[in-house]
């Protein structure tokens, strides 16, 4: 059995292990960042910390706070969730629910979206060399913010 949380998004269901899933919260206000890929919604202040937020769908009501290799990452875009112990998937690292395999959410790949050097340089000064991630770079955030509007939907 594997403990964790299964997120139900429009694109499918994804499993997040309990060791990684820290807490589920109602989504706070998210501040956009210039030049960020469309799946990086911005940064949000939650649980007393500024956390980069990525999306796996369109819903903006809930946020799952995850610890990915010492980095905090907020995930939004799922309509529902189910937490508990689940049977392991017949293949891969996911779990099985009602006979269906649910893949594990590729959080490392999502976190890699935060590597600023890979972003479009539109709105940012071009940087090369040093690998910078969004962690501790929230000062790049736009001064104005709105939650759930003005963003391109997938």
């Amino acid at each position, binding site marked *: *059995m594997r*403990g*964790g*949380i299964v997120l139900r998004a429009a694109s499918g269901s994804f499993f997040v292990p*309990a*060791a990684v*899933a820290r*807490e*589920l*919260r*109602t989504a706070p206000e998210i501040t956009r960042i210039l030049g960020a890929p469309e799946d990086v919604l911005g940064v949000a202040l939650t649980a007393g910390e500024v956390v980069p937020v990525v999306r796996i769908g369109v819903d903006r*009501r*809930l946020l799952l706070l995850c610890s990915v290799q010492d980095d905090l990452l907020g995930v939004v875009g799922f309509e529902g*969730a*189910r*937490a*508990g*112990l689940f049977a392991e998937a017949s293949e891969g690292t996911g779990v099985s629910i009602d006979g269906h395999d649910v893949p594990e959410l590729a959080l490392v790949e999502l976190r890699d979206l935060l590597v600023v050097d890979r972003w479009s340089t539109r709105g940012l000064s071009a940087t090369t060399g040093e690998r910078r991630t969004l962690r501790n770079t929230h000062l790049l955030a736009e001064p104005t913010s709105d939650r759930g509007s003005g963003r391109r939907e997938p």
Partner: protein
Amino acid sequence: MADEKPQRRLLRLLRRRPKAKPARDSADQNSLWIAHERAVTSVREVGEATQRIASNLAKQRGAVDGIADRARAIASRSSELSQSLRRVHEVFERLAVLALNASLEGARQPEGVGQPLLLIGDEVRNHAARGTELARELESAFGDVTGELAQIGASVESTKETSHEASSESARAGSAASNAERALQEVRESLRRTTGTDPETMRALAEAAEHARALVTSLGTLSGKVPEGLVASVLRPAVEPLLRLLAYESDEDDS
């Protein structure tokens, strides 16, 4: 002719074929006055009916205003309840999040240790889901009620407008009735001047003619059955003034 017995003169006079034209004039005048009286009565009834309609419309407007106030109050209350339901909905959603976090915490614990948390989390989550669903249904029902109230409000406003229009029409009708009454008053004066009569006189004349016809009919019935002397002695006190009048009129006609 002066030596003729009065009752015979009366019968002769009464049986004498009247001059055609004056009789027709008199009948026409009488018809005119009757028609005038009917018109006056009808116009007066119209005026009174118009006043009653205006009064009833005023009451109706008051009632409709009351309904509109109540509908507005209900709509306002409904809006407050709808907001409360939205808050209830949010509370259930937060409860569901809490339950999921409890289950997550239970899943994070070693096997067996986290079982109570998992059970509680599942139970609370199920209740929260039911609560959320019920709150959503109630919100939807309140949305329907609010829509119905909006329609009632629109209908009430329409009724108010219709009532207002009816009041205006009623006022116009009342004004027209007053004008008609004044016009009939003028007609009455013109008739009085033209014919030299008035409705009361014409009515009295008509009644007198009716009584005279009844008298003639009665005399015709008695003719041959009762001695004439008896008839004359009974009728003389009553008809002598009439006989004198008719004799005077006849003398004037003859002269």
